[in-house]
């Protein structure tokens, strides 16, 4: 046994963890070899993040054993993990925005009661690490002023500065442009070559195949497979993750573009503090086409959807929605938009798409609750709503098919299907969709994308905003790229590739 574990930096044995009634990790065992890059893949909710949080001491396992360098250890808190040389870069950065890079770096390892000495030695260490691993950042910059890619570098530096020899990264590329992702993968390779053990949690197979030595696949809380990266491929991994065959390519007919249903000219949005969130946005969406808006999260896409759906009035420019003019002086509220034939599937389904405490049946009519047949003379017709919801659930394959269950108790994918069902059921003329498949499992992703294409083929004008480039590429007939509140480029779907789009997303203008 001792020989077996000798070269393992980490070994997990029969780890089990439940949150209330949710059995998140079921008897998972795995080994991570020293000086390698190991990928852990799985769908959302497969338990990969939970398993790593247990390894990092953020959660306590209900059962099981953790071995570091072959010795069983207790991981009661992140302090223990740090003590054993384990560092974690979280999906949501654990950085204090108002602090400088140096202040963030020393937080928790200040090296004495007074800061001055710690800051000085961190400055020196930073210079050394920057050189050694190509992790350049300005030590005196405020974190809030850094790009997302740079913030991530600060996170990695923070971990290295604490002397970590084992680095866990949780969905590190979720917020990066393709170029920034490539840069990250280079850094990871360099780290491995200098002897650091890397564990990469992701659901993006491209990164797994590009950088890892070994892949561990998780499904429903269990470790279901382990492969040498060189001996596997995207199809096999996807199948292992989902448990059945998955088709990546959606076959869709060419768009049959009709008349313009949604158009905007020089739209702008300036907030109360004078920050320009949207700047000179002009676009049109015709019936029978899907227009995709690509961009790194936080470049104005959210605000654009808010303006187009009537949640916020524009501060400048005008738009025409189903032949109705809208501008700063003539705003339209979301209810009027709905009457005009605009349906909106918001980006943030838990805050804007549904009320988690409401029943599924209530979610299925939210926004339409004052219409026949759900409501007569100010009174809700419960049975009619329930029947309507059951109908939608059948058509959109929402599981479980229980209109009386609280919305919060459905999985992300099924919540999204329910919202999509609500918005698509009325055959809208314009369909605005934000992040259609964020936090949705692979099976549901396929279904949702097919429904969007069906809706397009039925003559709806569809606008999809997504930070997943792969999603935009597979859905859209035309692609607009947003950066810094502006549209910086337009590409026809056939001519688009990840590289050019990625450059535009990073702010480099199209030629």
């Amino acid at each position, binding site marked *: 046994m001792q020989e077996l574990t000798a070269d393992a930096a980490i070994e997990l044995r029969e780890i089990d963890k439940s*949150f209330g009634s949710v059995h998140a990790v079921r008897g998972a065992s795995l080994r991570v070899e020293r000086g390698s890059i190991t990928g852990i893949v799985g769908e959302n909710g497969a338990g990969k993040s939970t398993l790593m949080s247990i390894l990092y001491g*953020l*959660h*306590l396992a209900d059962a099981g054993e953790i071995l570091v360098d072959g010795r069983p250890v207790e991981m009661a*808190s*992140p*302090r223990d*993990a*740090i003590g054993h040389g384990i560092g*974690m870069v*979280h999906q*949501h950065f*654990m*950085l*204090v*925005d*108002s*602090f400088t890079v140096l*202040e963030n770096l*020393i*937080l*928790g*390892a*200040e090296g*004495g*009661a*007074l*800061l*001055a000495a*710690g800051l000085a030695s961190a400055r020196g260490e930073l210079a050394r690490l920057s050189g050694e691993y190509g992790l350049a950042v300005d030590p005196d910059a405020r974190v809030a002023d850094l790009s997302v890619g740079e913030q991530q570098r600060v996170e990695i530096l923070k971990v290295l500065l604490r002397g970590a020899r084992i680095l866990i990264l949780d969905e590190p590329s979720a917020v990066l442009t393709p170029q920034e992702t490539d840069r990250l993968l280079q850094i990871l390779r360099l780290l491995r070559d200098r002897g650091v053990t890397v564990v990469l949690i992701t659901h993006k197979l491209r990164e797994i195949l590009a950088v890892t030595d070994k892949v561990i696949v998780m499904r429903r809380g269990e470790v279901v497979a382990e492969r040498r990266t060189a001996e596997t491929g995207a199809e096999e991994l996807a199948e292992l993750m989902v448990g059945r065959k998955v088709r990546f390519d959606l076959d869709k007919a060419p768009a049959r573009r009709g008349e313009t249903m949604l158009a905007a000219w020089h739209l702008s949005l300036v907030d109360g*503090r004078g920050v320009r969130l949207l700047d000179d946005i002009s676009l049109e969406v015709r019936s029978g086409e899907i227009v995709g808006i690509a961009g790194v999260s936080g470049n104005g896409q959210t605000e654009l959807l808010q303006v187009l759906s009537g949640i916020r009035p524009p501060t400048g420019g005008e738009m025409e929605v189903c032949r109705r003019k809208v501008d700063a002086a003539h705003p339209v509220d979301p209810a009027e938009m709905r009457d005009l034939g605009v349906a909106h599937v918001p980006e943030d389904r838990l805050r804007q798409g549904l009320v988690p405490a409401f029943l599924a049946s209530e979610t299925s009519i939210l926004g339409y609750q004052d219409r026949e047949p759900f409501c007569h003379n100010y009174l809700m017709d419960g049975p009619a709503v329930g029947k309507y919801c059951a109908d939608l659930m059948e058509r959109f394959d929402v599981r479980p098919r229980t209109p009386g269950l609280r919305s919060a108790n459905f999985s992300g994918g099924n919540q999204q299907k329910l919202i999509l069902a609500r918005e698509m059921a009325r055959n809208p003329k314009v369909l605005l969709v934000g992040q259609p498949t964020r936090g949705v499992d692979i099976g549901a992703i396929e279904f949702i994308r097919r429904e969007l294409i069906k809706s397009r083929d039925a003559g709806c004008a569809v606008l999809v905003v997504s930070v997943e480039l792969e999603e935009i590429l597979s859905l859209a007939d035309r692609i607009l790229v947003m950066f810094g509140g502006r549209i910086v480029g337009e590409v026809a779907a056939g001519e688009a590739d990840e590289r050019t789009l990625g450059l535009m997303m990073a702010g480099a203008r199209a030629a």
Partner: protein
Amino acid sequence: MEETLTLVVATLAATLRVATPLVLCAMGGLFSEKSGIIDVGLEGKMLMAAFFAAATASLTGSAWAGVGAAILAAEVLALLHGFACVTHRGNQVVSGIAINILAMGLTVVLGAAWFGRGGQTPPLAAAERLNPIFFPVAGDNVLVYVALLSVPFAWWVIERTRFGLRLRAVGEVPLAVDAAGISVSGLRYRAVLICGLFAGLAGAYLSIAQNAGFSRDMTAGQGFIALAAIIFGRWRPMPAFGACLAFGLLDSIAIRLQGVKLPGVGEVPVQLIQAMPYLLTLFLLAGFIGRTVAPKAAGVPYEKEH
């Protein structure tokens, strides 16, 4: 000329006298708020401290025993606040208000039971009070100097020490502090206790330094004004100190202006002058403070998943 000078000096001295409890309270509140714990209960802590300071000084004859009792009383309430907000992740504003109500009621009930003077404590003799050190007229007792020193001290602790760095971090992104292996609860309890210490000193100042005994509701909203000073000061010690002085100045001018006829205006109603600090508080809170400067996690209990 000499008369004007005397007036200016007297006004400045009055300003400092009035501002002292505000400064102490504001510095205490600053520590609490920086850690992410909103302290609406400053008022209650100060009131309770004022009562126990006067009661203890009166019973023991020692001003320093009074100061000790004041700190102890404020710390008990601070721990209560910590227990409700940190340990049990309760609503911080509700807990603060509860502490204010508790202090308001308890001081009067205990005062009536122990001394039978309608909630007041017996008047304190000079030996039972903190007396001026250098300038008898100015009222420069030891707590005035403590308040003045507390400002650079607070700045230094918050900006230059490990504790300060962690304190600022826990008020912004407690999850980051937890992930760095530092106890969020531990930091917040320490911040709340520091706040109690300062509120205790402020209370002692009111009843055994500035005045010669406790009278009911003697804090008269000064805890809230201190809170406002923290906000005007954008959660920084020096500007908060400036705001406290501005309030003190306004108050001391108000006292000077009572009964004075101003040219062209006539006699300014006393009520209006007395309302000035409170009006200024409202005015500034409503319009002049950016929303983005408060510690991001202030008021938000830290929920750790298990």
